[in-house]
């Protein structure tokens, strides 16, 4: 989803959260997932939706993630 809706976005694992940098902004609260820090963790869809809202890419994200 990020590749298509936020090209160039970078996920940076931190000790407690994943940070996502894109377009000069940072989403700092993406959960690490149940297996700890990883580049592609399994994350509750609601968190991804809030991140997409923050980056103002929700319409694009909905198409990719089949969100309502």
């Amino acid at each position, binding site marked *: 989803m990020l590749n298509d809706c936020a090209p160039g976005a970078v996920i940076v694992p931190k000790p407690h959260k994943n940070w996502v940098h894109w377009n000069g902004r*940072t989403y700092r609260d993406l959960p690490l997932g149940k297996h700890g820090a990883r580049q592609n963790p399994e994350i509750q869809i609601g968190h991804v939706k809030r991140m997409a809202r923050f980056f103002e890419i929700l319409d694009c994200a909905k198409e990719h993630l089949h969100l309502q």
Partner: protein
Amino acid sequence: MTHYPLLFARRERVEGNGFIARVGVSGRVLLTEEDGEFWVEGVNPGGMAANGKSANEALAQFCQDYLAVLFDIASDAKDFDGFREEVKRFFDDTSRPALREWEEAVQQVKAGEVDAEWLTKRPAETKLGVEVTLFSQPAATNNDLGEMALAA
């Protein structure tokens, strides 16, 4: 879907690399009930959200997540100035979609269409900001439980 516009006040003490900082925030969050669960999105600070089965659970998780973000910022900061700069950037990274809904929700509160009896009401125009100071003088008067209030 009901939106509740909340004011978020906290004072935290955070240890960094060679410093202890106090972070006092007066911010805005949007509480939403959606599909049987509650979500809290940061307006200022933006770029964070938490959920729970109840409003209280979601708000408690948001406070925990907020502290976790401050800890992550502290772990990266080389010194106090770097920490303060990044905390201010975090606070100023406004969530524009959440802000629009927050402002609409304030109008609904003022019109009496939305209420949250379990929360104190504060003026929506309450001054916002984040203050990051070096912690050097311990005093009981520094202790602060913080508050969530309904913006009205």
